[in-house]
């Protein structure tokens, strides 16, 4: 599989939904496979809140199971594009970048970004590749929201949208969970009101707690039972002395790893973007009106064990699409991994994605 990683600069800048303009911005982009001569085989994949441009082809690929040669999104046939979202911390312009006005990192002063901003920035990326129409835009969770927004914002520029484990807006419970995560970060003494970069520290403890909670919400009761049960952690592999059970050790390990790599201001920015998303925000809450101009075919997939964006959130998208005569298929698949199920290649999931991509 041909992989290209590039930092692409957009000198024309971007007007953000908040009203603020970034005079220029950069996107860290990775592509898989090759663009055909008439540029019709482009597939954009959008990452979820903590993902990045590394979708496949390495150990860090968040969608390794789905993207690759002969996989559900087949890189032998399609040119797959994934960029780190604006405001992220994996190379695209975000809180870690230098603010040209101050010559210091933006930090907490990085402007608010939204799903719409991401879609608009990805449109510029599309123009950069001179692609007229994506064969598909797809993603799970917050990535699925971007795929939905693509079909709303640029109806002529997208043939198909794969919307997996997503929703038309965050629920009250989603916002509540995110706020606990943010609070953990803000109350970390190293957060320093968001100015930790200037002080050469990192609010690692807060980030770690936020991530531990996150992992619980991405998982499901049954997979936790199955993976860990009430087994005690082996004494030699405990991350520290406070750990009793395997599940504690797992969360500690995952949280620690995440807090090493992720930026706290970016965490707050990304979760705020997730909370703020509402596909019907431009139509005064009328979802059907918002979706009425969609020309893409939609495939909506939910997972039965997902309690963060449960199946009824998927059905809501399907129903609104059907009410305004937008072509839309919807399946609820068995997925043991809860919300994270969209990351894993079950046979049914792979077959339906493949069928959808290949369909005329």
């Amino acid at each position, binding site marked *: 599989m041909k992989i290209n990683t590039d930092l692409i600069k957009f000198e024309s800048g971007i007007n953000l939904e908040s009203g603020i303009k970034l005079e220029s911005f950069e996107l860290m982009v990775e592509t898989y496979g090759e663009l055909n001569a008439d540029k019709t085989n482009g597939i954009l994949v959008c990452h979820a809140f903590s993902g990045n441009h590394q979708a496949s082809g390495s150990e860090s690929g968040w969608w390794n199971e789905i993207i690759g040669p002969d996989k559900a999104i087949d890189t032998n046939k399609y040119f797959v594009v994934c960029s780190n979202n604006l405001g992220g911390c994996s190379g695209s312009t975000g809180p870690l970048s230098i603010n040209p006005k101050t010559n210091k990192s933006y930090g907490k002063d990085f402007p608010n970004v939204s799903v719409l901003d991401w879609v608009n920035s990805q449109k510029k990326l599309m123009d950069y590749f001179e692609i007229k129409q994506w064969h598909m835009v797809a993603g799970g969770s917050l990535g699925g929201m971007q795929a939905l927004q693509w079909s709303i914002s640029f109806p002529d520029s997208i043939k198909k949208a794969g919307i997996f484990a997503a929703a038309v807006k965050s629920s009250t419970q989603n916002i509540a969970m995110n706020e606990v995560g943010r609070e953990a970060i803000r109350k970390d003494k190293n957060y320093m009101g968001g100015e930790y970069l200037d002080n050469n520290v990192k609010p690692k403890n807060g980030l770690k707690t936020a991530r531990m909670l996150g992992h619980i919400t991405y998982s499901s009761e049954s997979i936790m039972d199955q993976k860990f049960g009430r087994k005690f952690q082996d004494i030699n592999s405990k991350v520290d002395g406070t750990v009793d059970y395997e599940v504690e050790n797992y969360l500690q390990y995952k949280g620690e790893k995440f807090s090493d790599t992720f930026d706290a201001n970016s965490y707050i920015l990304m979760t705020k973007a997730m909370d703020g998303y509402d596909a019907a925000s431009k139509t005064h809450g009328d979802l059907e009106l918002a979706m009425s101009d969609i020309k893409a075919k939609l495939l909506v997939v939910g997972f039965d064990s997902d309690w963060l964006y449960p199946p009824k959130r998927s059905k809501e998208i399907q*129903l609104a699409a*059907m*009410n305004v005569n937008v072509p*839309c*298929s919807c*399946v609820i698949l068995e997925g043991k991994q809860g919300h994270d199920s969209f990351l894993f290649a079950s046979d*049914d999931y792979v*077959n339906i994605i493949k*069928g959808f991509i290949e*369909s005329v």
Partner: protein
Amino acid sequence: MNISTSKIIKDWVPNNSKVIDFGCGDGSLLKDLINEKNACGYGVEIDLKKIQECVVKGLSVIQKDIDEGIQDFESSNFDVAIMASSIQCLRNPHMALRRMLRLSKQCIVTLPNLGFWKCRLHLASGKMPVTPNLPSSWYETKNLHLCTIKDFEKLCEDEGFAINKRLFLNDNGVKGLLSSLSPNLFASEGIYLLAKK
């Protein structure tokens, strides 16, 4: 579904209709309706393998157990709802029919006739019927609520459904004279166009 049944259904669906096909199977009928009648079509199916076949055909299909309720679809204002050879597989056929007529102006229902003379012969010889229209043995069949033409029309009367059109086929899939004269005995399949009275 045999060719004549599918042809009759297609004849009965007006051009440019918004159609929902309950138990759409592999989506063949729906695909024809979209291509030949310019229909805006959605399928409802419970079997994932069949759903995949629909998706490959480029159709819109929704995974759903009809028995769990189709009330959600009432806001969608369909012109025609179709239930071809599926009604007898439902736990609550009468409820499904009521709901179909709530979400759609008209509904087309096809059903195998248990009163068909070959079925009666099987029963008279002490065995469950196995015919081209009822091909599975009793322990494998998905059919839960088989009925005769008479039974079905009695249900329509009791429920207040208007039968706007009806057509009967014999087991060669044609509108024979006998199956028209005495459908309860000679039709192997009934095809109905229902509406609210």
